[in-house]
């Protein structure tokens, strides 16, 4: 057997694709705690990581899992964890710490139906706002949303690349459907995969937390005498917990380094966003319904355009604004009780009417028929 899968077409599960992608980017550390519907990632990596010289360990809880991941990242290794809603809750404090200490790492949240234990085995998309605002304080999250097994692979690679490039935690916001389904996946050759690694400091450099928008990141044990802290710190990592300017500069830079590059980070699949009657903004498993619904609408001579968000946060405003300028109405289907909806409404800013289409419970998806009916209904209302 080869250490990595050859370029070929495979029939994989979403969680499996995510795990293989992590290995392909050079991830060499996984720490996690069992939780449905994310456990397969831990199981798969527990077998595969040692084969490539890496480590997978099951920790005592999610607090420990994400803590170990952040520690691993400071040794210069790529590291990740995978969880679902309840575990994602427990990780929030440390996600804030990773943001404050500018630690690249990947957190996979395979969403299930909440709140609380909810319907543990059923799909949901209720963690959209949590993935953006889950930890306290002013911070900016990068959150990606795959809608297929292929994208579980591609966006896992992208998640690692963004984490390394911007020196920040990145969340892969998957869901039970994309994580558990099996479908065809085309795995590229490992040479053709673009891999970004964190910028390392030159010998003698001392400022790892400022001066530049994205400072270089040394590793533990290289002689840099790194001081890492989640307390407000200056560019040398030394705590400054009373100075208003040090705090302002740090927190504004941490937010700006993501917000200023929002359009560069944004990845959106668009169709007719500059020429349509009805617009759709969708993401994750729900967005699998947009293709058939669009076809059905076009058969009825209704012009549909859509923006399918692969990046949810920072919110891809440009594509959504374009759609809002064009479409008479925008439909936002999601498996929650309105989360992305309000964000679309904010960006549309009165330019067009935004219509929610929500469904929760039992892991029931919004079907192409339901979406098509909503499209038709929106036309009839005029």
């Amino acid at each position, binding site marked *: 057997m080869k250490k990595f899968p050859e370029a070929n077409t495979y029939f994989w599960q979403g969680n499996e694709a995510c795990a293989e992608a992590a290995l392909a980017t050079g991830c060499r550390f996984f*720490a996690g705690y069992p939780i449905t519907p994310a456990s397969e990632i831990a199981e798969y990596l527990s077998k595969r990581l040692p084969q490539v010289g890496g480590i997978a360990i099951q920790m005592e809880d999610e607090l*420990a899992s994400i803590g170990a991941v952040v520690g*691993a990242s400071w040794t210069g290794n790529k590291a990740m964890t995978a969880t679902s809603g309840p575990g994602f809750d427990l990780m929030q404090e440390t996600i804030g710490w990773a943001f404050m200490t500018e630690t690249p790492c990947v957190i996979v949240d395979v969403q299930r139906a909440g709140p609380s234990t909810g319907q543990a085995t059923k799909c949901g998309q209720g963690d959209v706002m949590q993935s953006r605002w889950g930890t306290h304080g002013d911070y900016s999250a990068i959150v990606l949303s795959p809608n297929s097994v292929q994208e579980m692979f591609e966006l896992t690679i992208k998640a690692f690349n963004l984490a390394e490039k911007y020196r920040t935690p990145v969340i892969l916001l998957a869901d039970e459907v994309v994580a558990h389904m099996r479908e065809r996946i085309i795995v590229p050759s490992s040479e053709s995969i673009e891999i970004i690694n964190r910028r390392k400091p030159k010998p003698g450099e001392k400022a790892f937390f400022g001066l530049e928008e994205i400072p270089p990141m040394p590793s533990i044990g290289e002689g840099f005498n790194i001081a890492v802290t989640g307390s407000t710190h200056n560019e040398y990592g030394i705590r400054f917990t009373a100075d208003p300017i040090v705090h302002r500069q740090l927190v504004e830079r941490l937010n700006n380094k993501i917000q200023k590059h929002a359009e560069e980070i944004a990845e959106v699949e668009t169709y007719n966003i500059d020429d349509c009657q009805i617009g759709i903004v969708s993401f994750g498993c729900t967005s699998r319904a947009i293709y058939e619904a669009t076809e059905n609408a076009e058969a009825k001579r209704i012009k549909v355009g859509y923006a399918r968000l692969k990046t949810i946060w920072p919110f891809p405003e440009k594509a959504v604004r374009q759609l809002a300028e064009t479409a008479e109405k925008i439909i936002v289907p999601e498996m929650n009780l309105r989360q992305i909806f309000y964000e679309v409404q904010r960006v549309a800013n009165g330019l067009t009417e935004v219509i929610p289409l929500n469904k929760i419970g039992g892991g029931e998806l919004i079907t192409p028929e339901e979406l098509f009916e909503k499209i038709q209904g929106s036309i009839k209302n005029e």
Partner: protein
Amino acid sequence: MSEPFSIRKYLRPIPLPFCPGCGGLTVMSEFLRAVHELGHENLSNFVFCSGIGCSSWIPSPHFIADSVHTLHGRSIPVATGIKLLRPDLNVVVFGGDGDIVGIGLSHFIHAARRNLDILVIMVNNMVYGMTGGQVAPTTPFKAKTTTTPYGSFEHPLDAARLAVTAGASYVARWTTAHPNELKESMKSAIEMKGFRFIEAVSQCPTAFGRRVGFKDAGEMLKWFKENAVQIEQAEKLSEEDLAEKIVVGEFVQKQGPTLVETIYKVIEEAQKEIEKD
């Protein structure tokens, strides 16, 4: 030991955060003295992790070394990630009783169970000092704190005995009135593998001592000295006799397979197997 010991050699030239009379300074200086006596000219073979609390400021950012100041209670998980990927480095955790056996207790037990190769030094001042003197899991029964104004109605946790039960390779407890013993234990522990735990019972005159009737740090040290019982002696005493005592000494010193050894063996075998296929 060619040069005489100088604590400044290991410290950044920035002010220390400790209150007058704090035992944290004793723990800091005895640790650095241990490092010096073991022949480490600097701290480049060490990584320090700490959580939240006064004693978490012992290494961070004062030691001229790699130091990771983590969240409250999470220093051991972070140290786990570091140690597993840099087994060549000596990973040392500093923390208070609240940090290590209050909010972070489960990590402490599991790291001992795994025999994870780290040294945990717990400064036990029997109180939440940094937040103003609230009751801790280590506060003596009936002691008055800001959140037990009528006296604590709980019994304190014996962290050293817990570490032994959980599977630690080395466990010792001393007080800040035993600086030399503390330093010697630190030297032994630094040189060992597996999970090592040293509890330093320490005085917090600011947030604890003055509320339980001690005039100053000196009185607290006297209390430690007078109430300390060596573990060999303690074994002969009844539970009643030991109620107000502090049992000190080396609780365990043993060698068994450590987490680093076991995990790297797994990697080696998995790699051999995949190359064979």
